[in-house]
């Protein structure tokens, strides 16, 4: 499986997506992204945590301390309504871009 380094914007998008169902802690978000992309993307903690903090500062996530599955203290991130709007906008944007890129990369007929 190729491991792709995520562009920052894509990572933000995936993080927002990973938190749509339920709040999660940092490692949980990473695992959820891997799961959602069927392992295509492995999230490096070195970019995950800065991204979480950045999104929180932008007001798209909020956080609170809770207990993890192993009964350890963990910081849980939750999508805010602003975050949801952002996800929607970004997803639509991504859709347009991916369609455009797919079209651009379509093999030329007759070649």
């Amino acid at each position, binding site marked *: 499986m190729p491991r792709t380094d995520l562009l920052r914007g894509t990572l933000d998008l995936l993080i927002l997506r990973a938190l749509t169902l339920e709040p999660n802690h940092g490692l949980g978000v990473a695992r959820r992204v891997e799961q959602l992309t069927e392992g295509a993307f492995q999230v*490096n903690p070195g970019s995950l945590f*800065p991204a979480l903090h950045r999104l929180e500062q932008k007001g798209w996530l909020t956080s609170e301390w809770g207990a*993890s599955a192993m009964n350890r203290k*963990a910081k849980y991130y939750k999508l805010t309504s602003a975050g949801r709007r952002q996800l929607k906008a970004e997803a639509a944007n991504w859709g347009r871009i991916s369609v455009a890129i797919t079209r651009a990369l379509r093999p030329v007929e007759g070649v």
Partner: protein
Amino acid sequence: MTSRLRHFFRNLLRRGRVERELADEIDGAVDLLIEEKVAQGMSRDDARRAARLEIGGVDPVKEDVRDVRAGASLDALRQHVRFGVRALIRRPGFSIVAILTLGVGMGATTAMFSLIDSVLLKPLPFREPGRLTMVWEARPRLNAPRMEAAPLNYVDWQQQAQSFDSLAAYINNFSSLTGVGTPERLVAAQVTPNLLPTLGVNPLLGRWFAAPEGVPGHTAVAILSYGLWQRRFGGDRGIVGRTIRLDGEPYVVVGVMPRTFQFPREGVQVWTPVDIVAGWGVRSRTTFYLYVVGRLKPNVSLEQANAELGAVSKRLAQTYRANTDASAFAVPLQQELARTARTSFLLLLAAAALVLLIACANVAGLLVTRGAERDREFAVRTALGGSRMQLLRQLLVEGVLLSSGGAVVGVLLATRTFDVLQTLVPESLRGAVGPTLDLRLLTMAFVAVMITGLVFGLVPLRHVLKMDLRTPLNARTTGGAAGRRRAQAMLVATEVALAVVVLFSTGLMIRTIVNLQAVDPGFRPENVLTANLSLTATDYPTAESQIAFYREVLDRVRRLPGVVSAGFTTFHPYTVRIGAGPIRVEGRPDPGNGSNVGIIRYVTPDYLHTIGVPLVSGRGFSDQDAGKPGVALVSERVAAFVDANPIGKRVNFGSGWLTVVGVVGDIKGEGIEVPNTRGTVYAPAAQLDVTGFFSPRALAIRTTSNPTALAAAVRREIWALNPDQTINDMRTLESLVDGQLADRKTQTGLFTAFAGLALFMAALGVYGLLSFVVTSRTRELGVRAAMGAQRRDLVSLVARDSAVWVGCGLAGGLALSTIVSRTMTSLIYGVTPLDWMSLTTSTCVLCTAAGVAALVPVWRATRVDPAAVLRAE
């Protein structure tokens, strides 16, 4: 946005908590990862290792998170500053030397900047000062490229020149204030009624003059300065409308000027109006004494105004024979007022900037030699995960910290010099402007801090960028010492070159002072006491009563012990430039072009003898001249155009025909540096009906010893005659002569101070360089000594390269000096810009200083103990 702001403040104010939470979060994530791996069947130890590997180090992750935080750059800066301060404190010797060095350089520069800013850059305190100009006459045939205006020419300019909204004129004079307490002589100005509207300044109280005022017969009016109003009238707002007595005449006060208004000269206390034509009744185009200020119309440029003045002058030259070679030109007022100061100020600033540059080079040199130690530190920090960008930022912050420290010291030093600098402000501006500690100065200091800080910060940059991590960590000896020695040697060579330039310029200034002091003023100023007595028209209405008073004063003064002789004249040398006029010779038409203009002085018989003007031929005045046909003495320059054999010829300069009875020496009464002083004519006051402007009021007393000891006795004698008599400016004639050199002495003093600093810092640089050479080559020296090298060899090994570099700097400095000195031609007197004596002296002084600085390190090189060095290996 609000969210970001909230986080920003939280990050800033609740740092501890934010950090704790971050640690908890990351540690928690690591623990979870371990648990996950254990659950997958790894052993706990393996899981821990794998987790660490996956996370890639807890601290870098934290660092990355910190970087995205709101206010991260501020945070990083704070850290850099804290670290920088710690680094500076850890090396107090280095820091203190660096900060003091920079402080001295910055102090010199900011002080000079404050002076230049206040005099040359800040707008004058008038309305739209950019449109104000002075207007001058030029008379090439009189060797006078720039002269006060003749009254009738001013009147014509005023009527014909359309480029100006208004043209105003004034003269400086003095008035005696009587009738309120002690009599006092006031610094005064007689001005045309439109002067103040031209400048665009409103009175604090009352009004300015209105047009018919100044015409004889109209009520006499006066305007007071703020200082006079406060001091003599207690700031009474009812002063407007009251009558005061000036020179014994009643004047109605119509206004009071604001505190800051000091035009046309420092300390002016009273203004009176004059109508040039009706008021003075002057009809002259050959006496030049009016200062003319013009306000350009809004859309007229200086060039257009000058073109028009040229055209007007041409018309006047065709109409009046006296004007054949006359022209007129306008100069911006600010440039005019600062004219004499401009070159010297810019040169002083340049000298100060050189001192700052030398200081920078010095500190840079310190940083280079310190680089070895820093390299190891940087290598360690890089190895621990610091990025080169971070190191770079750290260096810049440290540079700026050093220069900020320097700036604080510098600004403090600069403020201590303001009193001295104030004396360099041209008299016409003094009081109105002056160096102050203000926002502009602080801004300038800040700019200097940033520039010098960046320079230092970047000195070690090359090393950081090219640094091979392993070398400094492995090597026990200093890495790249040779390269560093070369870098420092280049800096020292630069310092030497710059120091030579400052030394050489100072040499020229000192030689100029020496030359000026050697200029023969044409009289003997030592042991002469001078004073000014203004006789009021009410106390002494006639020439006879004045002459009687002078005689009595002289009789009483001569009787004082220690007095050799005493006399009166119109004005003392150097005090007043005006009081000149055409001298007609009997039987010859007046050339009418002003070529026969001389300075006119009315004296009592003993005056010339008292100040020591030599009699060249004929006879001097005597008491027997009184009541006989008029006689005159002419100075050699006047004699030259009167006749080859002037004695017996008759001349007229406004007091009827006078017979020349003798020729006396010329005096440099207009200024010691004025190259072609005009000649002087003297007439005995007792023969002529002289009152008013030309009346002899300047008293000179020659004594056998210290003349100031006599001051009290002289005052007593005069007041015994008339207790209301004003006695002003009691000082020695020597001090009047010295006053001619006062500005230059201050300038030269500053130059000398800068030269001393430059020399000291260059010497410090040489010392630092050689010390570093010795330290970094101790091992080599020890080995060579062990192999039998003689002391001479060791000295040569240490000093040869440095000597070459210092020599290069010296040569460069001398070359630079020859270029720089050309800009000084207007400031020097009696020396050529390539004065060999200054060149030699500065070379010698510099070599001596370098030699002395080299002594200690070189001595240390010869004392290297081979055994100790080898043991240390």
